[in-house]
């Protein structure tokens, strides 16, 4: 497998530091771990997802007519 060197802009410093720390703890090379992370990212993106609407709507009962407008009231009392 061909290996390359890259420079990446706009990487979150804290996220990178934690990632690097985890990689070192596992005795891995940063490039190897980054390759695994990229493969994982791609497989997640390509994974077929169910539609939200495949969960069939149900009857929430009387008095539930305005629940979607009462989120704040229900959760925060406001």
């Amino acid at each position, binding site marked *: 497998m061909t290996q390359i060197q890259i420079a990446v802009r706009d990487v979150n410093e804290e996220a990178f530091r934690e990632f690097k720390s985890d990689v070192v703890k596992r005795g891995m090379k940063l490039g190897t771990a980054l390759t695994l992370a990229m493969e994982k990212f791609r497989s997640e993106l390509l994974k077929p997802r169910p539609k*939200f609407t495949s969960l069939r*709507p149900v*009857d*929430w009962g*009387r008095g539930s007519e305005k*629940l*979607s407008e009462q*989120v704040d009231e229900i*959760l925060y009392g*406001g």
Partner: protein
Amino acid sequence: MIFLDANIFLAHDNINDVHHEKALLLWKRIESGEFEQYFTSDYVINEVVGVTLRKFGKDRAIAIGKQILNAMNILNIDEHMLIEAWGIFTETKLALNLVDCTNIIAARIADAKFIATFDKEFKKSEGISIID
């Protein structure tokens, strides 16, 4: 790209909800790809699951939460986004709660052009295209 607010999920799930019919139509548009990708945040999931838990029960709360987690990308609100949202929350004259403000920041960070919500207060907020 479009960000989905909590009421969009709740109105779809509850056949008695005043916005249910609108939610069915809106979800068709969302899932047909009209707005390309759609996503929500961990804070919004917390609201949807919280309301479902209190008003319907734990089994349904688990079902709807699981469905959201499986069906779309979830943006985790980090400290930076929370601080940005806090800035909006403290400055705004609108009746937006802190989670609403994180919705605005989430949409902005992800470069989403739209927020799907039935909350009329968002319509008064500048720089956001509301879909309902």
